[in-house]
């Protein structure tokens, strides 16, 4: 393994760590680490202290684990490069190589989960001990205009994805006569083609089908969550309604651009394999998808969950209407506060309390129907792979 090969291996976990480091800033001040707190306690010292501790933990333990994994991979790579490629790899080197991937990938994930669980339980215990909700009027608020005059889905931002798909189809038609007799069905993570099939319309236009499937899933899901409910703050209603509207349209735009970016990655890969290449240039190919992902993260950071990071100018609410606070819904969030389970709630999609976007109500049987399309997609991908194996 060379230093150049380390970069793609490090990129995923690195992006994960950066995102994990940013996540506590995405949710509003009354939802630190998925714990609901009243506005009067949003600036409590325990919250600031836990936020710092979490970030230290993510940086030190997560970053350290990633670094260690890369060093292991480098050492294992050097050792095997010194010996004959056909000779069996000696045990210590094999062990190093086997350890490198889990340490690089699972280490940062474990560090972030541990940091989150710690911060959440620390804040929760102070909240319960000091009875932060004692004597407060707890309310749930709705703005019916979000339904009677809903935000319009920004369909025109699907144009870039459609243009990329059309360009791929046209390029495929033009290059079809000159394509080699055997075409790749699948490209591995390293950029090497690992499965070939005879040239047919199906194998030649597989990239276009993949683009269409991917775009339909991404935009379809975005359209679905676009109608999910808002989590409004009764203490600052007008502001949170406005924030929610901007949050909706920005999320929809960034997800549609992400679909276009991933479609572009597919086009770049197809362009190379249609010419008979048996490996694709990973850096160039992955660049658009990576840029799209970074774009989504940037929009999330600028907007915040539910638009919590947006500054909106609204008239201050009369004090009489401000006395109620958002109800303490901690009990309905299980599994470390990440899964919403509420049988009495007819909603299927609810805004996440830690992170960006929406989560399923696992107490609602209809949520299972939403899990069906991704499951079907998985089955489709696996069966296509099997089909590829058989045709080889």
């Amino acid at each position, binding site marked *: 393994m060379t230093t150049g090969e380390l970069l793609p291996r490090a990129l995923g976990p690195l992006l994960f760590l950066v995102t994990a480091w940013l996540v506590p800033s995405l949710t509003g001040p009354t939802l630190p680490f998925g714990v609901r707190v009243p506005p009067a306690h949003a600036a409590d010292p325990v919250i600031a202290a836990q936020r710092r501790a979490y970030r230290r933990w993510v940086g030190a333990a997560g970053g350290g684990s990633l670094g260690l994994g890369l060093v292991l991979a480098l050492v294992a790579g050097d050792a095997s490069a010194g010996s004959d490629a056909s000779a069996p790899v000696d045990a210590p080197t094999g062990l190093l190589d086997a350890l490198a991937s889990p340490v690089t990938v699972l280490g940062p994930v474990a560090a972030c989960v541990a940091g989150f669980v710690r911060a959440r339980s620390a804040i929760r215990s102070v909240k319960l001990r000091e009875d932060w909700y004692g004597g407060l*009027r*707890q*309310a*749930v*608020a*709705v*703005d*019916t*205009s*979000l*339904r*009677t005059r809903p935000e319009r889905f920004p369909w025109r931002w699907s144009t870039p994805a459609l243009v990329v798909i059309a360009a791929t189809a046209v390029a495929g038609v033009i290059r079809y006569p000159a394509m080699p007799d055997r075409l790749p069905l699948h490209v591995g993570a390293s950029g090497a083609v690992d499965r070939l099939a005879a040239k047919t319309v199906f194998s030649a236009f597989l990239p276009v089908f993949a683009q269409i499937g991917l775009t339909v899933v991404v935009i379809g899901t975005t359209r679905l969550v676009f109608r999910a*409910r*808002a989590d409004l703050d*009764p203490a600052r*209603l007008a502001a949170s309604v406005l924030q929610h509207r901007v949050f909706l349209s920005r999320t929809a735009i960034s997800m549609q651009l992400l679909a276009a970016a991933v479609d572009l990655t597919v086009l770049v890969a197809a362009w190379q394999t249609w010419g008979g290449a048996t490996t694709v240039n990973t850096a160039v190919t992955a660049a658009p998808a990576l840029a799209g992902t970074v774009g989504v993260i940037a929009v999330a950071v600028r907007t915040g969950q539910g638009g919590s990071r947006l500054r909106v100018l609204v008239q201050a609410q009369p004090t009489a*209407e401000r006395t*109620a606070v958002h*109800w303490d819904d901690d009990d309905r969030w299980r599994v470390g506060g990440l899964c919403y389970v*509420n049988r*009495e*709630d*007819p*909603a*299927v999609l*609810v805004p996440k309390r830690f992170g960006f976007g929406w989560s399923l109500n696992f107490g609602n049987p209809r949520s299972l129907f939403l899990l069906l399309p991704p499951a079907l997609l998985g089955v489709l991908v696996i069966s296509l792979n099997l089909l590829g194996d058989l045709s080889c």
Partner: protein
Amino acid sequence: MILSVDLNSEVPIYQQIRDRVVEAIASGELAVGSPLPSTRQLAADLGINFHTVNKAYDLLRREGLLLLNRKNGAVVQRDASSGPPAAHFTEDWTARLRTLLAEAVAQGMGDREALAACESTLARFTVTARGQGEPA
């Protein structure tokens, strides 16, 4: 309209929803023809059982304030500009007003104070209702 439901209140949730809609009509925030979300939609947004919203909407329908539509949810059917109330309404309302004023008297609130409170509350409704509730 903004609909805020107090979860710790002794007033049942369906009653709170009904009361907020009546107040929104009185203040001119809702006028004849104003749409409200369907019962299922409102229940999902509030995170409560859909029968609770159904009960509130049904109450409003029986009071002649709401027109329910299976497909498009609910529409406000009358407001301050729709003319005088039905005879049976005035009868019921006077009975409830009697109880409300009896509470004030029993708690030692003076006549003048009770009347002033009535006047200022009414003024808030009628001023805004005249401003926005007029049919276009």
